[in-house]
């Protein structure tokens, strides 16, 4: 424990040496700001001049960055984008729940659970290996083809199923890594109090594991945000599919750029949040915090 200095400590004048050091740091700071501004400007000018001097520049601006086409196609792309957002919201929740379930199953002990453990392991192996687009085709066209379900479900539904299947496999592995990263002494302390294995997991291990893996999970969420665009291959009219239709209408690729921008705008807040959170966790760990 450190004692606070007495409140009547007189205000001490700063020494000459420290004043000189501060002046030096200030000069250095001003210098580095200047250098970074200049280098950024130089790079931007070089890129710009190179681009506008390419032989196809005129045509590319017409076919990819046409403002009129962008404005005209925006409403339908936005309609499609709302489908993406719905699929994203539902998938994200399902992925966290299902991923945590799979991770927990993989940590179960005892011979009774062997078949479940093996199934969970096989599941993560399979779906981490299988390309998402193939899962989409298999689920979106295969399962309805079985005739098991009498009603015709929307393509977005099958998109959610396929995304959940694929992403849960990744997220389960992230959770499992987090569970294993909780120090064994925590488990030991909990078991010493008489807590069962299940309660130790639920009250002690999993809460700490989730804190540890949050940055990794957020990163997977960013990946999911753009992969929701792949449901268009099933025929669901999402932002990508809408852009495709608009492109065909105007003989112009600008709608794809519009859809792409929407996805980027969606991703940026999450990316910033992830960076901020990771930095915060790191800062905490550096002062010796345990969380």
């Amino acid at each position: 424990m450190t004692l606070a200095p007495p409140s009547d400590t007189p205000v001490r004048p700063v020494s000459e040496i420290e004043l000189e050091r501060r002046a030096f740091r200030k000069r250095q700071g001003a210098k580095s700001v200047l250098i970074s501004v200049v280098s950024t400007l130089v790079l931007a000018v070089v890129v710009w001049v190179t681009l506008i001097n390419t032989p196809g520049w005129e045509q590319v601006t017409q076919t990819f960055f046409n403002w009129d086409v962008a404005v005209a196609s925006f409403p339908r792309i936005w309609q499609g984008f709302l489908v993406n957002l719905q699929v994203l919201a539902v998938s994200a929740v399902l992925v966290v729940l299902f991923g945590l379930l799979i991770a927990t199953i993989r940590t179960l002990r005892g011979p009774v659970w062997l078949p479940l453990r093996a199934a969970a392991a096989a599941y993560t192996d399979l779906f981490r290996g299988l390309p998402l687009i193939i899962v989409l085709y298999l689920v979106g066209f295969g399962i309805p083809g079985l005739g098991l379900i009498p009603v015709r479900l929307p393509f977005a539904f099958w998109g959610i199923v396929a995304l959940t299947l694929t992403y849960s496999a990744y997220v389960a592995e992230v959770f499992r890594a987090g569970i294993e990263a909780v120090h064994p002494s925590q488990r030991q302390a909990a078991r010493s109090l008489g807590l069962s294995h299940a309660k130790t997991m639920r009250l002690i291990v999993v809460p700490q594991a989730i804190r540890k893996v949050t940055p990794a999970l957020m990163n997977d969420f960013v990946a999911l945000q753009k992969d929701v665009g792949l449901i268009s291959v099933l025929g669901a009219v999402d932002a990508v599919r809408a852009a495709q239709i608009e492109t065909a209408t105007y003989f112009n690729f600008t709608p794809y750029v519009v859809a792409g921008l929407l996805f980027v705008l969606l991703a940026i807040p999450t990316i910033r949040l992830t960076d901020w959170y990771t930095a915060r966790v790191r800062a905490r760990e550096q002062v010796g915090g345990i969380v």
Partner: protein
Amino acid sequence: MSGVLHLEDVWKSFDDHAVLRGIDLEVGAGEVVALIGASGSGKSTLLRTVNLLEPIDDGRIRLRDEDISDPRVDPDSVRARIGVVFQQYNLFPHLTVLANITLALRHVHRMGRRQADAAALALLERVGLTDKAQSHPDRLSGGQQQRVAIARAIATSPDLLLLDEITSALDPELVGEVLDLVRALADDGMTIVMATHEMAFARDVADRVVFLDAGRILEQGPPAEVFGAPREERTRAFLARFTTS
């Protein structure tokens, strides 16, 4: 004294290395037993076998009159009757100090929240940390954390308290506050088995000192006897290292 803990010819090996080689030990109700001995002599392993964190290879351990080394016994119910404090505190970093203490009361002993909180606050008052109830463990000093760990271990009024080198990770100036608390518990009649390197404390508080050497009990008796007039040469050699330093 009626016995709380009985060890009968307890053996334990890790791979080829025999850590406990036929331990016989009886601990009476309210007795404070200090285990001393060099690192690797088996002190910690002995405590871990009693708490069923390590299965034994041979022998028998009884708590009260129950054979807890019987594999048919539910280890969770045994551990619920034994309090343990570790060298590294092992508090739960994601829970407040209060929640650390109420955890076993609520989730093992099924006590209601309000009742458990009241019990925990009473304990915190006893260990002098009432104002830290809502803090997280990483905001506490080592000595404070260890006092919380002790409060957590005794919250369920265990039959037996095991202390595994609880001051070894502490800065010297923080050792006193923790030992004072252990002394108070001993005065209240808690049955305690502690592995320790604090010879002065063992001499002061323990009813009996047990010297472990290479997995055997080489010598035991009242502190005055073991420290004052050790019978065995190895005990003398071990103690000499502490008195000269």
